[in-house]
């Protein structure tokens, strides 16, 4: 019924769609996914086009339209942060171990605990991963198809949002690291590779080169 009826109406003009996207993004503190935008706008709307226009409109303004994964959000321009002392959220300072672990998860994802330990050369304490999960920056990913089927860790949309990243592909220095072969999972010479190496590589390629 609903769909039949609404298909009789024409989609609102693009300028109107742009206003709608603007209103929806302004009303939410969290990024709004494309699917949600589609669901909230009238039938026949083309949010992608509206977003592109809106993004252009806000270039250089006090607030900007940011893409985070498959979602969009409005955020204040970073150069104006100094005006926002009142809004600043005090975040518990992360330990050096937590920061390194976070970076390893981000650049090597999906990554197992054993791989994190191999890279850092020390065992990962219980609290470290826990803290990152609690911050909702890290979550459990797919299990690895290697003996023992270990769980993996990946970074979340919340992580991307927090660090203003459009996707994990935009991590600083990612290309250089890959070019230098530093994201490879190289087994120690003399050890029997468990197939993890090739698997990890495949996963990573899948994650970062998906377009």
């Amino acid at each position: 019924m609903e769909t039949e009826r609404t298909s009789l109406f024409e989609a609102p003009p693009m300028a109107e769609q742009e206003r709608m996207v603007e209103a929806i993004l302004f009303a939410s503190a969290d990024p709004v996914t494309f699917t949600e935008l589609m669901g909230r706008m009238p039938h026949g709307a083309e949010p992608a086009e509206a977003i592109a226009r809106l993004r252009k409109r806000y270039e250089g303004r006090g607030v900007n339209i940011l893409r985070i994964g498959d979602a969009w959000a409005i955020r204040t321009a970073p150069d104006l942060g100094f005006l926002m002392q009142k809004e600043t959220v005090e975040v518990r300072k992360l330990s050096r171990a937590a920061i390194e672990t976070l970076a390893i998860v981000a650049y090597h994802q999906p990554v197992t605990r054993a791989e994190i330990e191999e890279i850092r050369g020390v065992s990962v304490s219980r609290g470290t991963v826990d803290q990152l999960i609690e911050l909702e920056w890290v979550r459990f990913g797919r299990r690895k198809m290697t003996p023992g089927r270990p769980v993996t860790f990946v970074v979340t949309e919340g992580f991307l949002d927090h660090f203003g990243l459009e996707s994990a592909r935009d991590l600083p220095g990612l290309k250089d690291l890959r070019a230098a072969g530093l994201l490879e999972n190289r087994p120690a010479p003399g050890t029997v590779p468990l197939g993890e190496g090739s698997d990890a590589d495949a996963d990573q390629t899948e994650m970062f080169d998906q377009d």
Partner: protein
Amino acid sequence: MADSFQEDAVSVTDRIAAEALIIDVGAFEGPLDLLLTLCRTQKVDLRQISILALAEQYLAFVETAKQLRLELAADYLVMAAWLAFLKSRLLLPPDPSEEGPSGEELAAHLAFQLERLAAMREVAAKLMARDQLGRDFFARGITEDVQRMRHVTYSATLLDLMQGYARIRTRDDFRPFVLDRDAVMTLEQALERMRHLIGFAGDWADLSSYIPEGWQIDPPRRRSATAAHFAASLELAKEGCIDIRQGEAFAPIQIRSRTPR
């Protein structure tokens, strides 16, 4: 292994450098971290680092710690042993009969690990230097709630789910020991059963025929029931309620009720 590096002549500069580092030993996050710090004293690009020199620096560090009677964590000592081995591989001409990777391969891998860790630290610093939400850029302060329809959804995170499951499972893990009695028949059970049945039995019958249904096929259950019934029959014989006989060793045991004549 310990002796092999004790004999090595440790240069004065290495020793002085090692003593400076010892002060910070608690601040290092493992042997790789210490090695990276030692690399910096070589003042060359990580790619040109001399692993042999690095191994010597590390061994000097461990040696100094030992002289100062400082206890190093086990993984530092494991690394020391490995580096001493690596050093000997690097110094001695390759022995063709020897198995395993060459000293050069091992050194190259260590260099790779160090470079990788250094690279991760560098990008971690870059990541943390980025503009951050709630510090440098900000989300909408007033989110708009037009109270049209109030519709309740329930939320739970994967963490909630796992903690819930963990709660149940740990309860199980620490359940006090209880015999799993599904497959166990007690003497009392058999005795009570037989007391009841024996009154109806006239002539000699196999003891096994007294075993109840459900206990005759599954081996653990059958074993338990047989043992219980055998013990019960001895008990009944002692009380003078039944007679027992067995034709020969391992032949079926037969019982009959001893009716008062």
